């Protein structure tokens, strides 16, 4: 194989690797000697360093790795701050229980989840996905929770009747269990 063509392949290989890639590893994958790979790696490093680019190829202890230019750290931070809010499993579970069982008090949520849910509940209240509907007329007067307009908006629902029924889901799940893995 012509060595000229190996450079972009090396670039691609390092690019998709989560951890740094060593010259030996590359040589093995490409079925060439390490002596072929090393000069190409040097070339790639200097290509990235000389052209004014957002990414640099760095040699670390474990091998070679692409990194963003350190001076762009602030921009990277700004982008990641705008990342959409990610649901934790706990948040999603709690939200689901509230959505389907509202009006509901905290004790009922915790009974269903089997774990304390105060923290998640607070997060959901903070994110305005859940709201307090009132207080229940039982000793202790616990708060009653329900979902908000923001919740409907987030999930693209007109109203709560748009929630998929559990029955329909159970049917799908049942059939999925009886079929062999479909997509692998």
């Amino acid at each position, binding site marked *: 194989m012509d060595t000229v063509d190996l450079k972009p392949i090396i670039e691609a290989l390092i690019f998709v690797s989560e951890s740094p890639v060593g010259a030996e590893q590359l040589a093995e994958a490409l079925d060439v000697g390490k002596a072929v790979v090393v000069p190409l790696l040097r070339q790639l490093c200097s290509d990235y360093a000389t052209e004014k680019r957002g990414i640099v190829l760095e040699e670390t202890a474990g091998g070679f790795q692409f*990194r963003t230019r350190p001076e762009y*750290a602030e921009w990277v931070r700004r982008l*990641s701050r705008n990342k959409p809010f990610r649901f934790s499993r706990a948040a999603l579970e709690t939200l689901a229980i509230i959505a389907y069982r509202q009006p509901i008090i905290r004790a009922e949520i915790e009974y269903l989840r089997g774990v304390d849910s*105060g*923290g998640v509940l*607070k*997060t959901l209240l903070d994110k305005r996905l859940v709201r307090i509907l009132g207080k229940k007329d039982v000793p202790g007067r616990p708060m009653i929770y329900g979902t908000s307009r923001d919740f409907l908006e987030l999930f693209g629902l007109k109203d709560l009747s748009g929630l998929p029924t559990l029955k329909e889901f159970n049917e799908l799940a049942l059939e999925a269990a009886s079929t062999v893995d479909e997509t692998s």
Partner: protein
Amino acid sequence: MPYDIKIDNFEGPLDLLLHLIRKNEMNICDIPIAEITRQYLAIIDAMQSLNLDIAGEFLLMASTLVHIKSRMLLPQSEDDVSEEDEEDPRAELVRRLLEYQKYKEAATDLDLLPILGREVFARKFSSPELAALEEDEFQAVGLYDLVEALRGLIRNVPEASYHDVTFEQLSVTDRINQIMSQLAGKESISFAELFSPSPSRHEVVVSFLAMLELVKLRMLRLLQSVRFGTIWLFPAVSGEHQDGLDFDEDALGYG
């Protein structure tokens, strides 16, 4: 002979019928229904004689074919059929076959696209640049999280260990001084670091009260990188950090 056909190789009865029509080079718009029904049933019979499970859909199609065949045999009556209803009994089946073929082709076309993770690859992992960022970014801790951490600690204390440690009672003031000296010169310490390897219940409670007192005095900040994660104690060096405290009364309601 159609008998060597394995039903498993077909996605369903429509797929099998398409195969038979193509194999026999039949005109799809004028399917010889008697012939195709014969071949179709022969396959089903062969499968059944091998005791193979046949999905209900294949049997349903068999009965549809037989039904169409019988309707084809009936003489057309001019009286009881209005003109619009006078459709070829095969028409719906033909439509379905053509429609199915369309999506079967579309499925093949989709499969020819460069698929992410199969022909093309992207960086489907969190870049180290971002991982470093997330560690830096602490969320202020509410009282609830604090109480949770306390509860976790108390749960870990064996029953027996706090019965016989009554002689060494620590006061809150002592503990405040200890915490401040533990923090001296450090950027932060974790909540767990405050305690001896197997703390008594008393020690935990006193430490907790001391910590609250320090927070109230704005001498300490408590931060957490993820909810339910480790709680970190930071010495509050200047007034600018005071906003970081998340001490609304509401949080108490969850404790």
